């Protein structure tokens, strides 16, 4: 790796002041697992990395509100999320997803904020968090704003975050009365980067599906919702027809995990399976 400056500020204000909106070679660093890969490959040569390790408990905690909403600090390690009793109760799909997310060692180090800020489309958590309606809280010198996870990543490795802005926490609205599932399809081992990830989240009221959210990742340029498939499902379409709608709608692209034609077939089948898993044991009218 090429040499760089590493600074370890002790407060958020200090950290923001050390970022440089005009220099893309100045970036925040959480656990560093993804950045290290890019730096070792020579793809990213930082001038300065701003470590968020010293920012204190505000950025390392998992808190559940009285209504069941979750606030997760950006520096929470993926392994911490996976093991958290709060997460396992309030949003179990996150813990289930993490089991095949890279490996135990990477999850011991990688952070949720870094995972999202990285903007890599081949990640398991973005479609899951989109399906759960999650938002990131981002801070910059001009203040704080919330960005829905579905709007965070704009294109390949490009996010909506400004050059002097960083993710401080993740907010997940209450999932009470909602059910969710994530299905990951890999071309090699189970813990490989996904060829496709499909997440669904929905409520069931009076034996009818309400407010479904269907999100995919790894097969499109960014993780995204599939609104036509969601509308079809709300309108009473079968799980299979909802999958067909999803496959027709998704702007699928190919990569070395699979061709676009192959992934499009996967989308249809996997959406159907994800719905079946989320609704296991639930009776639906019609």
């Amino acid at each position, binding site marked *: 790796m090429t040499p760089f400056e*590493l600074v370890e500020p002790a407060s958020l204000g200090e950290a923001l002041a050390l970022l440089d909106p005009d220099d893309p070679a100045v970036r925040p660093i959480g656990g560093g697992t993804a950045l290290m890969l890019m730096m070792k490959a020579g793809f990213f040569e930082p001038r300065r990395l701003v470590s968020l390790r010293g920012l204190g408990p505000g950025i390392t905690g998992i808190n559940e509100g009285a209504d069941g909403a979750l606030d997760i600090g950006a520096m929470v390690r993926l392994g911490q999320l996976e093991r958290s009793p709060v997460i396992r109760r309030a949003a179990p799909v996150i813990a289930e997803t993490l089991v095949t997310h890279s490996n135990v060692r990477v999850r011991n180090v990688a952070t949720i904020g870094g995972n999202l800020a990285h903007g890599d489309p081949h990640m398991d958590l973005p479609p899951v968090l989109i399906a759960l309606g999650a938002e990131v809280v981002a801070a910059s010198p001009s203040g704080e704003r919330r960005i829905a996870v579905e709007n965070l990543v704009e294109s390949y490795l490009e996010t909506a975050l400004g050059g002097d802005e960083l993710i401080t926490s993740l907010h997940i609205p209450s999932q009470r009365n909602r059910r969710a599932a994530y299905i990951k399809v890999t071309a090699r081992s*189970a813990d490989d980067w996904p060829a496709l990830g499909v997440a669904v989240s929905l409520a069931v009221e009076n034996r009818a599906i309400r407010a479904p959210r269907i999100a995919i990742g790894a097969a499109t340029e960014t993780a995204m919702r599939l609104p036509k498939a969601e509308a079809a499902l709300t309108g009473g379409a079968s799980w299979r027809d909802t999958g067909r709608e999803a496959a027709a709608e998704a702007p699928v692209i190919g990569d070395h995990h699979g061709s676009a034609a192959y992934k499009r077939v996967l989308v249809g089948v996997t959406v159907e399976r994800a719905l079946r898993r989320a609704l296991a044991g639930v009776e639906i009218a019609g």
Partner: protein
Amino acid sequence: MTAPSRTIAFTLNGRPVTAEVAPHHTLIEVLRDGFGLYGARESCGQGLCGCCTVLLDGRGVSSCLYLAVFADGAELVTVEHLAAGGELDPVQEAFIEAGAFQCGFCTPGFVLMTKQLLDEHPDPSDDQIRHYLSGNLCRCGTYPQIVEAVKLAARKRGSV
């Protein structure tokens, strides 16, 4: 540019140490080049193979993907420490008795991940064993013996 080096202090295999490191140095570089500890090896360099595993505050990390400065204040254990008292660790004994290696290149990583596994799940299921070790690769293919070794190690630790 040249980045200034800094002094980090951490506990290495039970004793307090300091090291002069530059920000771009990885933990494995410091362990091998600074401390002569060669049990952790950089093999894939991408956190996939597990050969560079060390325990940091009791949990496995890929030292090839870990900035050395982030080890400041941590407690680090490498495979060299396991038999520090002159006796093999039960996990090491179990790997020998089960014949859970051939060339041995990956073995330190498997042994250390097994330590984290058994610390968190003293009586692991087959699924838990495969889960914790899924990020460690053995090119000799001794996986069946490794799974047996982990079960044997769990029994050895349970009876201590």
